[in-house]
């Protein structure tokens, strides 16, 4: 028996054309999903994705694979809810197993204030038809016996918000699946192609300059994840209300099954889930100063070990095997910026997702594709205009249960 040479799932070296109907800057999930839906729903296949490194290098491959739709505000929830509904649909459509595991998210409350915030979140979710319920400590213990619900931990567990439809998705599979789906429909994915400038004349987009030459296009979408705000300023002189922070994550050595839900705690700054390989994937900390290092810190590895073993004492003595960090482009109201044709016609923006970029990519790609193809802003994207900051109409996502600590 011999092995056939492996063929890549997508065309890795399409010819670089001098003109496209749309150019998407960044080879992450939001660009890949946008390209996929541009072709599927709008017949736009003369589209290029330009990626400086390789697809999945950034947030697409650095997140903790958690998906959920239990956000706080009514503007945000529909987008996340549709994204959640799309995982099984896309698995079939792309003919590629995205390994969606809807194990549910358990969000721990460690104070009366957090319980109140959780009840508010739960009411908002139920109002919008999203599964969410409150659990008392005894129910939490029944659900995840490894959790210590006694008075011993530094921040005892007062209850939890349980969100059954959430869970985890294999993030690399989403990158590969969407790249395959986009490429099969004729989209060009150009890796190792750095955009060095955006060209606009008389308030209209003309195209982009790249490390491989000029590309003409009447539509340019900037969706470069954590790098978007710096590029917006560098290319167009437009500053955005964004701070790029590094968010750290790590996995332990593989263990026998002990965690059958995603468990998170705002007070401890921890979330964790057990991967199908048995590793406990955990993370959450952001160093609160902007940087592009994507490096982890000893400071946080120590904190993470202490916090994790305080709520899950059975993990004491377990070793971390790998650790990494990615960029989160944080906005002041923890909601994204999706806008277009302002101030330049044909220029579109999809960024500011913070640490929500992975869980939102599918539905957002679908609506951003509609926006690009028609020039008309879809109703669901209405709340995410950049101008909301100038009107001081920030969204209330920061009031979500996840932000509540024992000191609130």
């Amino acid at each position, binding site marked *: 028996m011999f092995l056939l040479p492996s063929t890549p799932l997508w065309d890795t070296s399409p010819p670089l054309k001098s003109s496209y109907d749309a150019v998407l800057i960044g080879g992450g999930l939001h660009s890949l999903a946008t390209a996929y839906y541009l072709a599927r729903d709008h017949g736009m296949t003369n589209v290029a994705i330009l990626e400086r490194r390789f697809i999945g290098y950034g947030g697409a491959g650095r997140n903790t694979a958690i998906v959920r739709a239990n956000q706080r505000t009514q503007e945000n929830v529909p987008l996340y809810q549709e994204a959640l509904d799309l995982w099984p649909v896309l698995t079939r459509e792309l003919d590629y197993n995205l390994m969606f595991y809807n194990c549910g998210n358990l969000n721990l409350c460690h104070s009366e204030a957090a319980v109140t915030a959780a009840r508010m979140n739960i009411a908002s979710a139920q109002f919008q038809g999203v599964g969410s319920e409150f659990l008392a400590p005894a129910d939490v213990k029944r659900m995840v016996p490894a959790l210590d619900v006694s008075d011993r931990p530094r921040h005892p567990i007062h209850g939890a918000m349980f969100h059954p439809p959430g869970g985890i998705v294999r993030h690399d599979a989403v990158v590969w699946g969407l790249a395959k789906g986009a490429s099969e429909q004729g989209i060009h994915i150009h890796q190792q192609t750095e955009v060095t400038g955006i060209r606009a004349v008389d308030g209209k987009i003309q195209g982009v300059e790249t490390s491989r030459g000029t590309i003409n296009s009447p539509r340019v979408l900037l969706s470069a994840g954590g790098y978007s705000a710096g590029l917006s300023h*560098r290319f167009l002189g437009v*500053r955005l209300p964004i701070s790029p922070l590094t968010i750290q994550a790590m996995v332990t050595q593989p263990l026998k099954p002990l965690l059958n839900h995603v468990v998170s705690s705002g007070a401890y700054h921890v979330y964790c889930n057990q991967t199908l390989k048995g590793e406990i994937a955990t993370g959450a900390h952001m160093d609160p*100063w902007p*940087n*592009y290092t994507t490096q982890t810190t000893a400071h946080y590895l120590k904190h993470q070990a202490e916090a994790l073993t305080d709520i899950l004492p059975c993990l004491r003595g377990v070793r971390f095997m790998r650790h990494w960090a990615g960029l989160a482009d944080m906005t002041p109201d923890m909601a994204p910026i999706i806008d277009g044709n302002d101030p330049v016609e044909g220029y579109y923006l999809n960024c500011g997702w913070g640490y929500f970029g992975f869980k939102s990519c599918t539905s957002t790609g679908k609506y951003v594709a509609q926006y690009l193809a028609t020039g008309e802003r879809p109703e669901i994207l209405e709340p995410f205009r950049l101008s909301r900051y100038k009107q001081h109409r920030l969204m209330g996502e920061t009031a979500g249960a996840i932000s509540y600590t024992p000191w609130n």
Partner: protein
Amino acid sequence: MSFLITCPTCGPRKGYEFRYGGEDKGPRPDEAGLTPEEWVEYVHMNRCVAGVSKEWWFHRDGCSAWFTIWRDTRTNLQVQVSNDGPEEQS
């Protein structure tokens, strides 16, 4: 990655003793006749430079001094700059 910041009072100290205070955007705008647009520009809008940037820091676990430094956002390291520094690269 851990790094040091030089406080004008206390000298070089561990970065985690400090709180980041935002990009240096010049003096606070005059409140008389201030429009929401100008205020948002000052409060929220950032350059997000991937390179050397001038920014405010606060010695939270120390002498409580507010001061500006130049720091390379690609390495986290403080950069010594004479006069008013290099042209910011992005």
